[in-house]
């Protein structure tokens, strides 16, 4: 049985979470396989919320599945699809069903997804969402009404260490830290110097916050180059693209697993940050190999 993520943040030397990506459809078989495979190997499974603005099985539903399988879920909530009433209601429901970790995100733009004509909500932004969770934790709703049965969420937020220019991002990062968060999960990071700078910055504001470095599994040179071109906030250095390109045909994914393992090992050995969050994007079944490559 998993220990609460909040406990893991306090007691473990190196924290490992993995992303659980909901499917397109109501067939949860594959997700359940991934949950079974990973639930006892990581400290928490972090579930995306209509990731990349593509409509999928809900984050909340997947978190319930993780609970049913005895795992520890982290509920991602974005501000894109729900207004303040809906977000609060979802959080109450989540807590009542044993989901007590929430990652507060702005959410990708509707324009990058598969329902481009939908109305974007963004009633709140990610900083306001963090404040909202604190308000609920204090026993009140956003309108100041008392809650019958309070909540006690462990709160996370995101950071983008590779943004350019970085200064405006750091302002937002400071606002998140100043709002009070238990953990930070970074966007995919490959340049560990950038990660170090992000850590220094975090500790200037909050010495106790735990920072998990985002590790996106690279499956080949093409994918890495594509991310550099198309995924804002992600930057794969040239030397890694070369390394992937030089891998013998058909071994790109193995090389990617090796690279991820190497990055995690270095982060852990040099104590650059407090842990990692592994995003295998469609290759969840390979996460155990990444963990093995990292000696975890």
């Amino acid at each position, binding site marked *: 049985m998993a220990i609460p993520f909040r406990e893991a943040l306090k007691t473990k030397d190196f924290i490992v979470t993995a992303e659980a990506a909901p499917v397109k459809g109501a067939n949860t078989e594959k997700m359940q396989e991934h949950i079974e495979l990973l639930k006892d190997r990581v400290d928490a499974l972090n579930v995306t919320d209509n990731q990349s603005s593509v409509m999928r099985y809900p984050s909340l539903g997947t978190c319930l599945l993780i609970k049913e399988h005895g795992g520890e879920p982290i509920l991602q909530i974005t501000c894109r699809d729900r207004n303040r009433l809906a977000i609060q209601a979802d959080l109450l429901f989540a807590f009542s069903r044993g989901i007590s970790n929430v990652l507060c995100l702005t*959410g*990708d733009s509707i324009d990058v997804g598969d329902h481009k004509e939908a109305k974007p909500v963004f009633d709140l932004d990610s900083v306001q969402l963090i404040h909202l969770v604190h308000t609920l934790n204090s026993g009140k709703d956003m309108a100041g009404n008392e809650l019958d049965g309070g909540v006690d969420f462990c709160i996370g937020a995101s950071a983008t260490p590779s943004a350019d220019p970085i200064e405006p991002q750091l*302002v937002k990062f400071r606002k998140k830290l100043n709002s009070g968060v238990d953990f930070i999960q970074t966007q995919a990071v490959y340049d560990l110097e950038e990660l170090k700078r992000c850590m220094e910055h975090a500790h200037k504001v909050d010495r106790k916050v735990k920072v998990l470095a985002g590790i996106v599994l690279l499956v080949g040179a093409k994918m890495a180059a594509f991310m550099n071109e198309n995924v804002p906030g992600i930057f794969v250095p040239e030397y890694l693209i070369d390394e992937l390109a030089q891998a013998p045909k058909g071994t790109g994914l193995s090389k990617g697993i090796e690279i991820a393992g190497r990055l995690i090992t270095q982060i852990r050995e040099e104590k650059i940050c407090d842990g990692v969050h592994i995003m295998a994007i469609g290759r969840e079944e390979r996460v155990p190999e990444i963990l093995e490559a990292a000696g975890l």
Partner: protein
Amino acid sequence: MIIAERKPLEEIKNMLSGYKEILVVGCRTCVTICWAGGEKEVGILSSQLKLASSREGNELSILEATVERQCEKEMVIEELRDKVQEVEAILSMGCGVGVQTIAEIFEEKPVFPALNTTFIGMPEAEGVWVEKCGACGDCMLYWTGGICPVVRCAKGLLNGPCGGTRRGGKCEVDPEKDCAWVLIYRRLEKQGRLDLMERYYEPKNYRAVKRPGRIEAATA
């Protein structure tokens, strides 16, 4: 000013199908400046409609008029009172307010919109208009260096940029557009007021304008 774009000819033609006597009405204010519905555009659309219809063996009788401000009842009445009697339908080349003003005055006649009203903005270059104001009813421009995050940030974020900002400070949604929060940062930096960036902005009060909006001047 209000920015609008003309609808495709095909759509306008379909809207008007069944009507033969039409009054096309322009406006000399905003939509003249954004090249969508001024006197010149009224002339062009009228010719296009006549030509397209006559090709299909359908002769249209079109009257033209341009009102100083289509959103002012008195001006609309003055300019259109007589002409309206001679037609079956009115095609407004004003913004959505103009269309509704005409429709309210001449209730017995169908009024059709020839434009899509898009936003409140300004000309940026020859033939280019950009959105600047969302009419949110709760202006925060004094905190943000005179740059509106409500509409110039694609997500309307109030506490800084999202993680989607592209290299060079461009918007996640469109690499041609600047990230509003990068612009705000640079503007405030120039003014030595970066402390304003650190301020926490509460969630927006969407009751600042009770929709549909209505204001009564204190002296009225």
